């Protein structure tokens, strides 16, 4: 479970990126974090992962406070940033094994997962090459595989579908559904409303650092009968 309680973050003492945000996510849910540019999505995600420290409030991952017990909390999730340019001079296989070592994944499990996900994301022949030689989409895939290799109970993904080819995007979406079916949490930020519509059990619409709506899309549509998802999104965010 993810529990975000009254979290705020201000940059340089002026710009309030996240304002008293509260959100609870239950196991088995796929949550789409939707909002315009600069809404506070990435800041929230960074606070959840320990990259940023909130000014106020508490974030708990599976009941563990990320500020009080950072190492235990960090073991609960896998994080894919919006920038996949990481350790570009490591080979794909070296990066995956490095992540497996950091998360202390047993040898048999890491091998089985590398083979499975390399095949799923069509990366088998790229593993022996440096990440530097990969396209943007391939870099995205190797970072995703680096998360999948330690099989976290919470997935936190910042714009994960950007740059993926249709086959890989489909594979990722199917994997997300599978993880949710296994009782895990998948939280991802996106600008693509159609993806959220097809994939998410709930959406959290955020703007100016505040949650404007959190619930199922069916409920949201019911409250705005006859309007498209795009119109609803624009209406909700314009009233922030």
């Amino acid at each position: 479970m993810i529990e975000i309680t009254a979290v705020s973050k201000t940059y340089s003492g002026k710009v309030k990126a996240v304002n008293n945000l509260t959100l609870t996510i239950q196991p088995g849910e796929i949550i789409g974090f939707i909002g315009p540019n600069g809404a506070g999505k990435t800041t929230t995600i960074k606070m959840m992962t320990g990259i940023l420290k909130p000014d106020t409030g508490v974030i708990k991952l599976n009941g563990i406070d990320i500020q009080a017990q950072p190492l235990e909390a960090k073991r609960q999730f896998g994080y894919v940033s919006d920038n996949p340019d990481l350790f570009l001079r490591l080979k794909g296989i070296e990066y995956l094994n490095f992540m497996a070592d950091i998360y202390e994944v047993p040898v048999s499990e890491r091998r089985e997962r590398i083979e499975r996900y390399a095949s799923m994301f069509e990366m088998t022949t790229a593993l022996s090459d440096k990440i530097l030689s990969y396209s943007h989409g391939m870099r995205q895939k190797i970072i995703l595989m680096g998360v999948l290799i330690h099989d976290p109970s919470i997935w936190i993904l910042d714009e994960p579908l950007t740059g993926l080819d249709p086959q890989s995007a489909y594979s990722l979406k199917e994997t997300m559904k599978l993880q949710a079916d296994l009782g895990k949490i998948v939280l991802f930020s996106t600008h693509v409303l159609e993806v959220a519509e097809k994939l998410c059990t709930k959406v959290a619409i955020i703007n100016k650092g505040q949650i404007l709506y959190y619930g199922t899309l069916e409920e949201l549509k019911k409250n705005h009968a006859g309007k498209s998802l795009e119109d609803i999104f624009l209406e909700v965010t314009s009233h922030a």
Partner: protein
Amino acid sequence: MRSFWALFVVTLKNTLSLVDSGKKKSIWTRLLPAFLVVAFIPTLFSFYMMAEEALKLLIPLQQSGVILGLMLTAMSLMIFFLAIFLIPAVFYFSKDVEVLLALPLKAHTIVSAKLAVSMIYEYVSVLLIGLPILAAYVVNVQPEPLFYVITLVVLIFAPLIPLILAGLIVMVVMALFPKARNRDLFNYLSGFVALAFAIGINLSVNSVVQIDAQSMITMLIQGNDSLTGIFGYMIPSIPFAINAMVHLKLVDLAISLAIALGFIVIFLVVSDVVYFMTAVGVNETGASRKKLKAKAYTKMTLRSNPLLTYTFKELKLMIRTPIYLLNNISTVVLMPVILLGSILTGVGSDDEAITAIKSIPWNDPNVLAYVLAAGAAIGLFMSSLNLITVTAISREGTNVYFMKFIPMSYFKQIQAKVFSGLIISFLGIIFMLIPFGIILGIPPLSLFLAFIASLLSGILINYIGIIVDMIHPKLVWEQEAAAVKQNLNAAFTMLPAMGLGVALFFTIGLFPQPMWFAFTLYLVLFVLDVGAIYLAKKTCKKAFDQI
């Protein structure tokens, strides 16, 4: 012309904006220009003194122009040398190339705008070499006002031909050898050529130093014509520029400018033929896209301790990034070679020196104290020189967030970074101590004790380095070189390390018994090591919260 100008202005602004991010400047950033000026004063002053000494001998012989020829040649060589690195980075591997290739621009427009921006960079070299030598020339020769005008024109155009020559060579290499269109390979090759060049220059300078001043001047005067010929062979405009400056001949100035114009025309024609062909398809590194064989796969997926795997990750990234390999690791080989080269060329033919070295009583406690101090100084020197830990956080750049979300404590991560620095430092220490020990005939036990002292001082510098870089990392950069070469943090380990290294030798005399010095040295270094490790542990949580 309009598109050239627009592109030039945008490229220049973009380059400058990397220097000035528009953010509030920290005290460090504000102090940087002053620090650089102060750092260069001794170099500029020594150039001035050298030029003045030479002029005192050359003026009576009416050969003062030789100094201007040397100045222009040194400038051209330095610019050409730097351009061999700069041109590939600017013409082929900078991030704007892909955008520019898609714009409706002619090849010569792109290349000439990039060349013009490169010229701006090179004026630093022009000023560094030109200012002190010209100052000495002006003070001693007192030339007429026209000299200043001609000199200004000559200096403005000074970087042009060396840059064009480097540009032509790079473009032709790119055209003839498609495999060179790979950033990593190109950087490795040019880096190792530069290393060889640096070692070669160092060794030849050492042998030149053996010649007394009078014979050097005689050689200089005798070589005047042939030297000018050599300048002319490489940069044909230089003899005319020298003539224009010395004899204030505007015709010669016009000829030197016409030659420069000729080079520009050749460059533009070649760039139109070659640039697009070579710039399209340039990549960062090679790739095989082959499935791993079962044996390799099994080997590469073995489990390892997180601290160990993190340390090896650091080392792999350093070795595989050409800029880091050359700046951080090559010193391990380069410094011992340079120092040993100096000793061998200095002592090699000097029988007195050899006899003096052979008569050193190495087992004397007083001598042992100096050996231990030398060991500690070598530890300080080699560890501060490789810049590994003092740039370890800076090298992460925008990827520093990775350190913050993985389930590994900050202290453990910085330990891994320090270990990577220590491994390279210790290699450097060994490469330094063993050959020195053999050449000077130091007994193994003394060498071992010196090695222990160097390890203790090496640990100290590596931990101080990581503390400095944690507190003030340089994380915003576009090219990896900026994280290492343009990182002021390096000064915070190098300068104290050098100072401490020298101070060690002066403290020996303060102890009544040499053994007391040895004991105190070990004890103080050990206590400082423990203190530095404790401070690093205390600093990391707070420092990473700020990053």
